[in-house]
Structures are given as structure tokens and as C-alpha cells.
């Protein structure tokens, strides 16, 4: 498939933003500026970047606790995300959600859910609301392959298929749920095949090739938006780092990780663009500089943010204005 230069550079920049953002998070976590659980998206950038590119601004997104990449690719400002992780009022959730609970009304980003499978029924409901109100909108729902074992996945797949709901199910198959390999969690590991069992069109995608993801997502979104009912994408990817910040990684071999690192989505696209002559050394350096500048500003801005007054502890338990 041919890649238009502008699009190629855009995809590369977006993946780079996520990669570098996550690396900043590691630093801030080690410096104990970020606390709690921190799940990095390093290695999986092509998935969020490829899918988000296919969505329209009025579409909706539901993500998991591993949500920095989704938020960034959806256009949530890096500074707001960073401020959230520093627990600041300027954060996406005023510092009340943290890394696992990023939300953004303006881009219809519905979080940031830390219960495995917990966000999936929400996506069906968002799609139901669109369908009942005659809006030609798509709800993209991200979840890991581990969630496929949850009852909430099953119930929602059936409901979405039964009611023909405009949901794009994006299964991020990174082969592990914490330390549990797919084969120890699913009797049938061909997840796209599993999805078709619900009568939902499904196909596997190379989740390390952002162009393949973008292409598959575009086709899927068209089908969903045109009233074709839900579509399921199995995005085959890999997490290069620990499940959360620290984990012994006794469940997979260094060789396996090494093998996958050779298919680093950013390296793959870089090669590709170089080969096409669409990317030169200085282009890349410039891009890195822009991203670094953006993240420097994001971290500085986040640090300069303010803390919610303790007197406001119980705000947002119930709504302050009637809608």
C-alpha cells in the first residue's frame, strides 16, 4: 500500500509523541512525582494512532487503564494528561482520576476504565444513544485480549450484534494479561474468529504496522458508520515494558521481547518513510525536537499546576448543575 508523505509523517509524529511521553512518565514515576499504577503504551503506539486517525471528531472513544496513548492520539493535550498524573486541578480529571482515568468531554473521550472489561458495556450504550438519536457516529472501544475472558465482553458483543450497534471493538492483543499468556487464558486463541461467533465481522491486523492499522480502521469505520453494525478488530501488538511500572517479567523470555522489539512500530514506519525518501535525518531530528519541546512544556506546565483545595474533597460526587 502506498503512503502519502504528509500522512506518513503525521502518523510517525503521533507515535513518537506517545513514546516520548511515556518515557517522561517513567522519569517522573521514579522521581515519585507520579504515583499509583502506571501502565505504559510503549510498543503499542501504532494501534491507538492508527485507529484514532480513522475517527471523526464527533465519534466517541472508550479506553482502558493503559490509556495515555489513546488520549494523546485522540488529541487530548499532553499537558492536561501530565497534570492529571501529577494530581493537579489542570489535569484531565482535576487530579481525581490519575493515569488510569483520563477523560475529555471535548473529544468525547470517555476514559480511562480500570476494571478489565468494564468499559465495554458503556461503549454499547453510547452507540445505542447515537443510533436512537439518528446520529451517524461511531464509538471505538479499546480493551486488551485478557478482557475477552470476562462475562462483560461476551454480553456486550452479543448485545451490540443483536441490536446492530455502531461500535468498533478494538482488541489490543499484546499476548499477555499481566503475566497470563493468551494461551493460558483462552481455549480458542484466534480472537477474530471468536468475534465472528457473535455474528460480528472481524479481522486480525498487524498492530505493529501503523499503516495497516490505519487502513483496517478506515474500512471498519466506514462499515460501522454506514449502519453495518459492529466490527471487531484484533490488533496484534506487544508491550515492550512491564505490565505496570514494575513487574518481575518471569512470564516471558528476553528473546521473545527482543524479537518483538525488532518490529518496533516507530522503527518500521521510519524505515518505510526513509525508503520512500519521504524522511531524512534532519526531518527526524526536527520532529524529535518538536516533540521534546511539546513535552518539556507539558511537564513544566503540569508542575506549575495547582492542587485542588482539600475543602473541595467531596465535590463531583453529585452534579453541581442540573443538566
Amino acid at each position, binding site marked *: 500500500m502506498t503512503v502519502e508523505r504528509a500522512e506518513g509523517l503525521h502518523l510517525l509524529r503521533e507515535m513518537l509523541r506517545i513514546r516520548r511521553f511515556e518515557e517522561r512518565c517513567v522519569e517522573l514515576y521514579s522521581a515519585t512525582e507520579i504515583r499509583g499504577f502506571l501502565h505504559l503504551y510503549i510498543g503499542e503506539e501504532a494501534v491507538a494512532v492508527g485507529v484514532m486517525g480513522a475517527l471523526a471528531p464527533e465519534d466517541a472513544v472508550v479506553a482502558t487503564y493503559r490509556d495515555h496513548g489513546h488520549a494523546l492520539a485522540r488529541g487530548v493535550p499532553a499537558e492536561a494528561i501530565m497534570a492529571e498524573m501529577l494530581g493537579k486541578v489542570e489535569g484531565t480529571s482535576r487530579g481525581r482520576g490519575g493515569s488510569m482515568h483520563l477523560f475529555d468531554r471535548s473529544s468525547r473521550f470517555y476514559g480511562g476504565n480500570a476494571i478489565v472489561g468494564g468499559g465495554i458495556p458503556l461503549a*454499547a450504550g453510547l452507540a445505542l444513544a447515537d443510533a436512537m438519536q439518528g446520529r451517524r457516529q461511531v464509538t471505538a472501544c479499546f480493551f486488551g485480549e485478557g478482557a475477552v475472558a470476562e462475562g462483560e465482553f461476551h454480553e456486550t458483543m452479543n448485545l451490540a450484534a443483536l441490536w446492530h450497534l455502531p461500535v468498533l471493538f478494538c482488541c489490543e492483543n499484546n499476548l499477555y494479561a499481566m503475566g497470563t499468556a493468551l494461551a493460558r487464558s483462552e481455549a480458542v486463541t484466534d480472537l477474530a474468529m471468536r468475534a465472528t461467533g457473535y455474528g460480528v465481522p472481524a479481522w486480525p491486523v498487524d498492530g505493529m504496522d501503523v499503516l495497516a492499522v490505519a487502513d483496517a480502521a478506515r474500512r471498519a469505520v466506514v462499515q460501522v458508520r454506514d449502519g453495518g453494525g459492529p466490527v471487531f478488530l484484533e490488533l496484534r501488538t506487544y508491550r515492550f515494558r512491564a505490565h505496570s511500572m514494575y513487574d518481575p517479567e518471569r512470564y516471558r523470555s528476553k528473546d521473545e521481547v527482543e524479537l518483538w522489539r525488532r518490529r518496533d512500530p516507530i522503527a518500521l514506519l521510519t524505515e518505510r518513510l526513509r525508503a520512500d525518501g519521504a524522511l531524512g535525518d534532519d526531518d527526524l531530528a526536527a520532529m524529535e525536537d518538536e516533540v521534546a519541546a511539546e513535552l518539556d512544556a507539558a511537564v513544566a506546565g503540569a508542575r506549575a499546576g495547582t492542587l485542588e483545595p482539600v475543602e473541595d474533597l467531596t465535590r463531583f460526587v453529585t452534579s453541581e448543575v442540573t443538566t
Partner: protein
Amino acid sequence: MTTTYREAVRAALRDALTRDDRVFLMGEDVGRYGGCFAVSLGLLEEFGPDRVRDAPLSESAFVGAGIGAALGGMRPIVEVMTVNFSLLALDQIVNNAATLLHMSGGQFNVPLVVRMTTGAGRQLAAQHSHSFEGWYAHVPGIRVVAPATLEDARGMLWTALCDPDPVLVFEHGSLYNIEGELADDAGAVDIDRAAVRRPGRDLTVVAYGGTLGKALAAADQLTADGIDAEVVDLRTLRPLDTATIVGSVTRTHRAVVVDEGWRTGSLAAEVSARITEEAFYDLDAPVGRVCSAEVPMPYARHLEEAALPQVADIVAAAKELGG
């Protein structure tokens, strides 16, 4: 006009479906079957399968879809047949409906109404006789109401739908057939305050939902013993209207709390603790509790009757407080 509790709920549903086309009813057998307790009988014919929506046996998916639809601008009324089955959807209610507003720093409120039947008394045994409304009353972010009268059955729903946040409505199964007079122009009622259903001087009996009738009957019997009991109907289980409860007890100096839940960890425990915290020096005797025996509900009629709070138990508890 003369009507039943069932008809009053149905009138409230019809009214809501008529007034606001964002409102829809979703649940198991609410449509073609007419509702497992015949509450929604006829509404499918009147409003169609889109707005009176039969759901598969997937409690967590359709409750979660209700949350998502509320996020998407609809005003769903989700019916969970009974509170017993709501345990299968508890994750969605606790981890999503109740928390999304706060986790999103105030961005996403969930205008959802969930109706369910609660309680025992019809020999349905251990898996169909629970009273878990006390558990829901423990959760910040949701409002819990229990209509015990025709007026409340008719009027609480619309007010609940106007609430920007999730409201759970508990209808005690033994109430559907109660008959009485209801003003033709009966409409919305508040869902904030407890109500004194019977004024009295000597003792306060606190009850709600299915036990209100028993409390009133006990109050009548107590007059024979020269005890003039005041009966307070909680109406809203969360947030509790402590002012009305304590106001009554500071006048009567004695209180008995009636609750169909198991005694240990019952809602009655909370009411008792609050009364003691706020009216300790006005109390002439310890707050009494009349709850269900701590046993999974037995099928046999004589055992179920013995397990449930009865009028005689309330009378006995009241006399024990002396005065």
C-alpha cells in the same frame, strides 16, 4: 381515582415516555411479556420496541449500556427484574454509574434511572428474597429511593429522571397489588425528604418501602397499650434525611428502626447509629432494630414469616423501650 401501586408505576412510566423522547425503558421482558410483574403491560404497543426494549439475559451489559446511553444524551430507565439479579450488574453500578462523574473531574454525569423489585414475602426462597437496597445506600454518587405509597410510586420516577445523576428505585414486590385513592392530577414528588406518615408523641418507628405498612399497623396496635407512635417513612435511602428522623426522635425520645434486610450491616444499623450520634442525650432508651433473621430466606411459609419483621415484632420492640 382508585388505582394500584402497579398501575401508578405504569402511569409514571407512560407519562415519562410521553413527555421526553430521550426516555426509554430497557430490561428483561419489559416488552412482549409485559414485565415480569406486569408493570409495563401495554407500553410496548404504545411506544414501540425501540423505546420499550426487551434485553437478553445480560444484566451487566444492559445496565452498562444504560449508563452509556445516559452519557450519550438519553434518559434510560433500566429495569432489573429483582435486586437479587442486580448483583450481576453491581460492578457497572458501583464502578461506573456512581464514579464516572468524580473520576472525570465533573465532566461526565450519568442521568440514569434503574428500577428493581426488592424484598421477600412470597415464598420465593433464598435466591429471590433479598433486600440489598441498603448496600446501594452505601455508595456515594447514586441516589436511592423506595416508594412505599401510591403517590410516591406515581411521582418519584419523573423527579428521578430530572436528576442529573444515577437514581435507583426500589419497588417492594408485595406492594404492586395494594389499592387506594390517587389524585387524578398526581404528579412528580420530591425525592429528598423523609415523611412523617403518622404523627405521635411517645415513640418513633422508622420504616420504608415494604415495611411501612407493617409499621403503621403496629402503631395502631400500640394505641391499645396507650403508646402513641410516630411513623417516619424514609422514602429516600440515600442521602438519608437525618434531620426529619432526628427531629422526630428528639420529640419522642425513643426509636425503633424497621428493615427487611438481615440485621447485621442493615440500613437500620446506619439509621440507629445516626440517631445515637445526633440525639444521644434526648434518648430515653437505646434505639431498637426490627430486621430479618440472619438466614437465607427459607421457602416454607411458616419459616419465611418467622424470618421476616412482622407487626408483632415491631409492637414488642416498641414496648421493650418502655415509656
